[in-house]
Structure formats: C-alpha cells, structure tokens
C-alpha cells in the first residue's frame, strides 16, 4: 500500500489492473442482470420488486463509501499518504451519486408501493442526510484551494460525519419508521435463494463498479495535475524567453 504512494508507481500498477477490473465489473453486472430477470417475481409487487436489485446495492455502497472515504482520509492524515487523500476526494462524488441513486430508486418504488413519492420514513431520511453530508464534504474540497490543507480539513469533516452517522440513524428511527425491517441479516435471511443469489451478485458487481470508477478518477486527477505542472513549466519558459528578448532589445 505504501509503495503506491508514488504516483508514477500507482499509474503503472493501475494501468495493469484497470482492464481486469473493467472486465470483472462488466461480467458481474451482466450475470447479475441476467439473474435479476430470471429471479421469481414478488407475490405482491410483481416485477416492481426488481428495483430492489439496484436500490439495495446502491444503499449499501452509499454507506460503505463514506466509511471508505473516512478511512482513506485517516490514512492520509496519519501517514501523509498523498494518494489516500486523493482516493478520499474522488470517492466522495461517487458516493454522492450512489446515495442519490438510492433516493431516486426509493422514490420510484415508493410511488406504486406506498402510493406516494416521498415519505419521511427513517431510512429514506437517513440516506437523504447522508447525501447532504456528501455534498458538504465535496464542498470542502471545492472551497479550499490548497489541496494539502483541504485534505486535513476534509479528514475532520469525515471523522465528525462518521461519528454522526449512527447517531442520525438512531434518532431518525426514534423519530419515525414504517419501512420494512432489514431482511439481509447474519442469522438466515427471509428472501428466496434465487433472489438472494441475484442480489449478492449485484452487490459484488456494484462494489467492483465503485473500485473501477475510483481507479479511473484517481488516474484522471493525477494526469490533470501533471498537465497543470507541465503548463506552468511552459508558461515559465515563455516568460523567461520574453524577458531575455526584452533585455536583448534594450541592449541594442
């Protein structure tokens, strides 16, 4: 992990890894979608229950990415690992999109199932708050220009947020709940085995999708920084050239 702190090494390593990641993601996603459309329909909701296969993995990722982000920030904070900070920075928008996807699929599902687009139900509200927390975190990286400083401040935001997530979950559940209780628990689950297979494959596919996207966006950021560094160097050379030309003309 610490060898990868060097951007050049990371670029080489990730360019080797990336094709495999893309292939695994596409394969899992294809297999998962095939399994989803072969899984039995829900007795009550019919085909509608297939939203679950997008909704649940997004919800899991939205939360897991926040934890990942905070851990990456800690790594950057403690060991001054520059790529860890970059990983945290680039994981945030992806996490925000998954939180948004959870909200949208939840609303699409809520309209036919509950008869309304939005209910102030505990879990929906918790995801909404999580989405706002992602926005706040992204805003930190946007408004603080110095990236080293932004990384340190972002770590504090992520840490406070991490403490806050369970408190929010507890309080909104206290406040209101009409969602069905979690059906994927460690002690046996209450859904059909074929549905479970499809769901688990989708979980794996989404996780790999996140990893692939994260690798791509970190690579993009490194490339962008290098491009900017090159631009600055060309600019400096041009200025030096103009200066010397001016000096020459003065001498003449």
């Amino acid at each position, binding site marked *: 992990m610490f060898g990868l702190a060097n951007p050049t090494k990371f670029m080489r390593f990730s360019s080797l890894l990336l094709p495999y990641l893309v292939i695994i993601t596409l394969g899992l996603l294809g297999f998962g979608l095939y399994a989803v459309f072969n899984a039995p329909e829900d007795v009550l909701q019919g085909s509608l229950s297939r939203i679950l296969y997008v909704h649940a993995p997004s919800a899991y990722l939205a939360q897991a990415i926040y934890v990942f982000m905070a851990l990456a920030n800690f790594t950057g904070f403690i060991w001054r690992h520059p790529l860890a900070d970059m990983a945290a920075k680039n994981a945030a928008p992806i996490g925000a999109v998954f939180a948004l996807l959870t909200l949208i699929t939840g609303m699409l599902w809520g309209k036919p199932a509950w008869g309304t687009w939005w209910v102030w139900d505990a879990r929906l509200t918790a995801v909404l*708050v*999580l989405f*706002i*927390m992602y*926005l*706040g975190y992204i*805003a*930190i990286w946007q*408004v*603080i220009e110095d990236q080293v*400083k932004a990384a*340190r*401040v972002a770590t*504090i*935001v992520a*840490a*406070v*947020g991490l*403490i*806050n997530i369970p*408190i*929010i979950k*507890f*309080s*909104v559940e*206290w*406040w209101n709940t009409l969602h069905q209780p979690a059906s994927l628990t460690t002690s046996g689950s209450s859904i059909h085995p074929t549905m479970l297979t499809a769901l688990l494959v989708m979980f794996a596919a989404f996780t790999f999708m996140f990893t692939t996207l994260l690798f791509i966006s970190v690579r993009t950021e490194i490339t962008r920084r290098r491009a900017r560094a090159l631009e600055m160097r060309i600019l400096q050379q041009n200025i030096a050239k103009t200066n010397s030309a001016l000096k020459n003309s003065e001498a003449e």
Partner: protein
Amino acid sequence: MKPLLALLRRDINLFFRSGGGAGQAIGFYLVVIILFPFGVGPDINLLARISIGVLWVVLLLAILLSAERIFADDLEDGSLTLLLTAGPLPELVILVKLIAHWVSIALPLLLITPFLALMLNLPAGGLIPLIICMSIGSLGLCALATIGASILVSIRRANQIISLLILPLYIPILIFGVSATSDMTYQVEKPYTSLLILLGITLISLIIAPFASAQALKANL
C-alpha cells in the same frame, strides 16, 4: 483557570459591545416567528400544535446563522493565532469561546422565547419544559456550530457552506429536543427519556467540538 475566565469575560464583552452580535440573532428569531402565523394562518389550535417544532427550528437556524462570528473577528485582528499558541490548551480556549458564544447568542434568545411562545399559543405547562430543553439543546447546537466555524474559518462568506456541513449534525438535537419538550409538555409515560438522550447528545457534542475545532484551526491557520 484565571486566563480562561478572563477570556470568557473578554469574549462576552466584545460580543455585546461590538454591536450586531446578539441583536442580529434576536432580530432573526423575532422576524421568523412573527412571519410564521402569516404563512400558516392565524388558527390558534394549529399554532399551538406546531409551536414547539417552530420555536426549535428557528432557534436552530438563529444559532446556525451566527456560527461564522465565533472565530471571524479574532481571526481578522490576529488574536486567534495568539490565543491558540500562547497560554492554555487550544481545546480549552475553544471550549471557552463556545461557552461565550452560547452566553451571548443563545441566552438572549432563550430570554425572549417565553414571549414568542405565548404568541404562538404554546400549550399550557409547556413553557418550563421548553426552556429547560432549549437551554440544554442550544449548548449542543453551539458546540456543533463551533466545528463548522473552525472548519471554514479562512473562507470568506462561508455561511452557506457552514449550513450544508452542520445541518446533518443538527438533526439529532432537533429530533430529541422537540420530542423531549413535547413529552414533558403533554406528560406522556416516561417523560424524561428523550431529555436524557438530548443531554447525552449535547455532552458528546461538547466533548467532540473542542478537539475537532482545534484540529481544524491548526490545519487552517
């Protein structure tokens, strides 16, 4: 202990004498509460039912909007750096500034709350629970506002972003503040459960805020 008390006195004096400090928050609190009946209609029973929630939300917003002021003036004249590097632990300095902020912003709001509660037709016997819960909750709100203020201390006009950052942190206090107040007002079974949780969240915030703010200020200055 002595320098901390001196700092507390200095901060409170500065807040009340520099003008616009507590007045701004009180003005906001007053205006929004007065506007509310115009928005939802003058029905006394409806106002009574929503009064606890409205008072809490507006208190929360008033504290949120004054968050920027906690460190802004001291940063501008350079005294913040001095306070954090010389003398007592930075965490203690921040704790004192937080308490000073509570005294100068939240306390005046609490003092005018009884009048506004009457105007919103707060249910009988609701005033004392409201004041108790609000004094506890507002301390937690001030603590969380301190985190937001320290994170964005070097950013100009940071108020919008502070709202975005702090809003998620405020939700638990709002939920348990309102539920503690109404539990005690309506004398439900076990009326103090929510109050104890509110107290717990406030204490957690008071512990986390100085450490998080000290780190954030260190990164920012």
